[in-house]
């Protein structure tokens, strides 16, 4: 099991636009990825509804986890997405 803890950089938090872009990215990495909030709630990272349901604000920490071939690379690429202020693009 690979895990990575990331601080959400989006100035508006992980809501509609950043959440959509993140979930789309998670759906493409090839391994199932779990997103866990600091409060300990876990969802499928590829589910927009799941990501939104966590209600993650700017500067909050989240943990990504995945298993299997390519898990580390998948988490690295998704951490990059979370480290970017997606609402600025």
């Amino acid at each position: 099991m690979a895990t990575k803890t990331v601080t959400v950089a989006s100035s508006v938090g992980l809501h509609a636009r950043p959440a959509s872009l993140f979930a789309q990215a998670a759906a493409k990495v090839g391994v199932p990825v779990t997103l866990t909030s600091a409060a300990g709630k876990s969802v499928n990272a590829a589910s927009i509804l799941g990501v939104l349901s966590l209600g993650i604000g700017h500067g909050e920490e989240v943990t990504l986890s995945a298993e299997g071939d390519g898990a580390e690379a998948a988490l690295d690429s998704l951490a990059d997405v979370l480290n970017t202020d997606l609402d600025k693009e």
Partner: protein
Amino acid sequence: MSDEESKPLHELLAEASINLDASATSRDDAIRQAGAGLIAAGSVDPAYVDAMIDRENSVSTFMGEGVAIPHGTLAAKDSVKSDALSMVRFPAGVDWDGNDVRLAFGIAAKGNGHIALLSQLASILMDPEKAEALRNATTTARVYELLTPDPEDE
């Protein structure tokens, strides 16, 4: 959770902002109807509706489960007077950039209110049975019942 608490969804959705039997000729028509519900509640200026379409052109607010949640851009926050939700049901569906949308929830929020609001709405829609019941709801009483959090889920 976020630093700002949002009111419960059923308190943010005015009865005048619910249309359970609508039809739309296009995605933008559907967004304008969701926006009209927010205007009817006195929550936003008409300019907010244009921002909702701008946002949709930037990234789709289609969420799965036949549901879209159109809302304005960050730049349009000044057009928001109070947090509110609108609901428009399209029994015949709307072609939403290739997705079949049956329900549109218009969302307006000041400050960081949108995070808690979206979180509440997403938590309900994640339950496929509740999402289906909302898509099939024909009375406002049923909508309010479905949007009221189940105390056992807290």
